[in-house]
């Protein structure tokens, strides 16, 4: 009886003790977990600036919102040309977006002003939580979003410049194709120009950054020192002479100095130009006007004779960067992971810019949308980002001056011109 009583009593006390311990544990867990869960589920609104409407995925984040009901992404389009200035102004006013897209060569000012988040921890978390998705990204995805080795986001799109030409005109004229060197381009241009068409379409105005000029420079083996192009080199002099020849031999349009990218593209699409160096994203428009391989074809940019070993294929990039002022860095990185999904980024790449996400570039739908892709699979792996300097906009102004000087003075001494402009580039880079 006593034993029985003891048992009951002991059991009761034991049960009470166990219950007390369990309640205490539950309370401790609740104190720790509930706020975290509550915080995680608190509605989060992210603001994201895209540099072009074309970059916004077709589903406009609806799949992301379904998968993350507590996160809402509000998008806006701030043109790439204004993105840096607008972002800095917004940041100073305390209204910076959580994510911004800028040209890769313009990251410097934002990083120097400490307005970009060091994304290393977020990227590491991405790798551990989604190794498959992380593994799809090429190294360029990180390098194009980095400044001085620190990643600030991810570049899901990059834009190479390829050489396109009227393969039907080349065949009719019996000219070997594709042109291997830029001398071949000039020679073909001289043979193919007529009163109604030009041999090579190029823009010469100040309406855009000199990215076509620099792409040609890099394909000629042009080099950079601390992100400053070395114009007073064999490649630089050759480049200036190339531009001079375009005007001197009337291979390009006499209005080239006033031409912007629209004029340049319209000439080729409209059947008024035999050759052009253009971004991959414009090729769908060529294809809509002329069937690939029947009327037009594309290849990697030609090279400079003697500079073959140094030739490189330049690519621009438009990374998505995380603001240093965001209150939701993890959620911002989730938005980037969503954009990096092959089905999401692939839809954008099929109609706009190529991507750094491997599966999206090799799937059948992409090949059908861009039938020239198989010809560029290997060159794509060798793309080199355009080097970016902190004073990139000012360097661009000097390069535009050099380009226009060559176009306006087709008989001037190109080497002296290169030396003169290199001095100005060095002054600008040094902040003088």
């Amino acid at each position, binding site marked *: 009886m006593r034993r029985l009583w003891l048992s009951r009593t002991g059991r009761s006390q034991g049960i009470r003790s166990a219950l007390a311990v369990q309640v205490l544990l539950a309370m401790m867990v609740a104190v720790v977990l509930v706020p975290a869960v509550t915080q995680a589920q608190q509605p989060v609104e992210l603001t994201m600036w895209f540099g072009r409407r074309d970059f916004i995925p077709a589903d406009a984040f609806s799949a992301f919102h379904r998968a993350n009901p507590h996160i809402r992404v509000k998008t806006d389009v701030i043109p790439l040309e204004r993105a840096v200035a607008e972002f800095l102004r917004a940041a100073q006013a305390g209204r910076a977006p959580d994510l911004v897209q800028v040209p890769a060569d313009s990251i410097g000012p934002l990083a120097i002003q400490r307005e970009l988040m060091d994304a290393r921890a977020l990227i590491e978390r991405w790798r551990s939580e989604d190794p498959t998705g992380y593994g799809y990204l090429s190294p360029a995805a990180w390098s194009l979003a980095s400044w001085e080795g620190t990643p600030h986001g991810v570049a899901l799109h990059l834009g190479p410049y390829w050489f396109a030409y009227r393969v039907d005109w080349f065949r009719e004229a019996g000219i070997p194709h594709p042109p291997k060197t830029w001398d071949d381009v000039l020679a073909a241009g001289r043979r193919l120009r007529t009163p109604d068409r030009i041999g090579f379409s190029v823009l*010469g105005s*100040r309406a855009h950054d000199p990215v076509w000029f620099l792409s040609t420079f890099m394909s000629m083996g042009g080099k950079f020192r601390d992100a400053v192009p070395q114009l007073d080199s064999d490649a630089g002099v050759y480049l200036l002479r190339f531009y001079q020849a375009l005007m001197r031999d009337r291979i390009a349009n006499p*209005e080239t*100095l006033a031409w912007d990218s629209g004029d340049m593209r319209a000439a080729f699409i409209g059947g008024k130009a035999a050759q052009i160096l253009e971004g991959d994203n414009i090729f769908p428009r060529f294809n809509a006007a002329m069937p690939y391989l029947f009327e037009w074809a594309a290849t990697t940019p030609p090279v400079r004779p003697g500079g073959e070993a140094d030739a490189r294929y330049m690519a621009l990039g438009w990374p998505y960067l995380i603001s240093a002022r965001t209150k939701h860095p993890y959620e911002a990185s989730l938005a980037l992971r969503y954009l990096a999904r092959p089905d999401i980024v692939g839809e954008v790449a099929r109609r706009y810019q190529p991507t750094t996400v491997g599966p999206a570039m090799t799937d059948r739908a992409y090949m059908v949308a861009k039938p020239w892709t198989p010809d560029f699979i290997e060159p794509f792996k060798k793309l080199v980002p355009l080097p970016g300097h902190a004073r990139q906009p000012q360097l661009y*102004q000097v390069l535009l001056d050099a380009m226009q000087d060559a176009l306006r003075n087709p008989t001037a001494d190109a080497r002296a011109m290169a030396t003169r402009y290199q001095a100005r580039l060095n002054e600008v880079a040094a902040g003088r």
Partner: protein
Amino acid sequence: MRLDRRPPNPAAVTGMGRPRSRSWVKHATPYVLLAPALILVGGVLGYGMVSGFATSLFRVEVWHVERPFVGLANYARLVRDPTFQNALSRSLVLVFATIAAGMVVSFSTALAVNALRRGRDLLLGLFLIPFLVSGVAAAVTWRFLFIGATGLITMALERIGITGTWLGDPTRALIVVTLANVWFLSPLSAVILFAGLQSIDPEIYEAAVIDGARRHQTLLYVTLPLIAPVVATSLVWLTFASFNMFDIVLPLTGGGPGRATEVLGVYMYRLAFRDLNYSVASAVMVILLMINVTFSAFYLRVFRV
């Protein structure tokens, strides 16, 4: 009943109707009504000007975190900079060419409309259309007229033997920009001058005719002196609008070819929003403001307004 009671003096009545308060309200009312506009203009423009001037005294560059005070160093740098000198010279050419051509066009338009008996308002309204169109739209239209072999004016000129590129040649591009600028700014100048002509008493002209004055004498010795103040206003308009011109130039030529049409407005825009060099751009703004104020003061003094 007291017979010497005088009727109450309304001026001595307290509350509403007291002459002193009525006078105060009457004097204060215009200022009160103007206050919102003044606050808006002063707040937006005034703040911008003061802030811009302050920024021009510091080195504000996006590739530096520090913003040290540099005094007038930005101005000294600008004066020595060949690109600034080029922009200033281009602006001066544009301004003086616009004044010359603009005054001829607007004054002759005003005289012609003033001489009309019927359809005056309709014609004046039609003349104002270029000014009512946005600068960008006007610039794009002018670009279409002169670009390439298919530009309407280019083709017309080729038929009379004037060939060659217009927007691709530095001198010709500046001519096109000037023509577009005159086309855009002259209408308002014409309206200003027309208003001045309308204010002249017709009897003065009758008296001049009776005195034997010829038409050109009437114009020189009667019309022009009487409308001198509005001529000054018109000149101020043409001058400062030309110095500040931006939305015609940028879409039309982008400041090119070379920097042949890079006037101060385009130069300042490029410094601020392409080069992100805010302090030097602010210095350009201050210089532009001083130039405009100087010219305006000169006109007002010469024409004794």
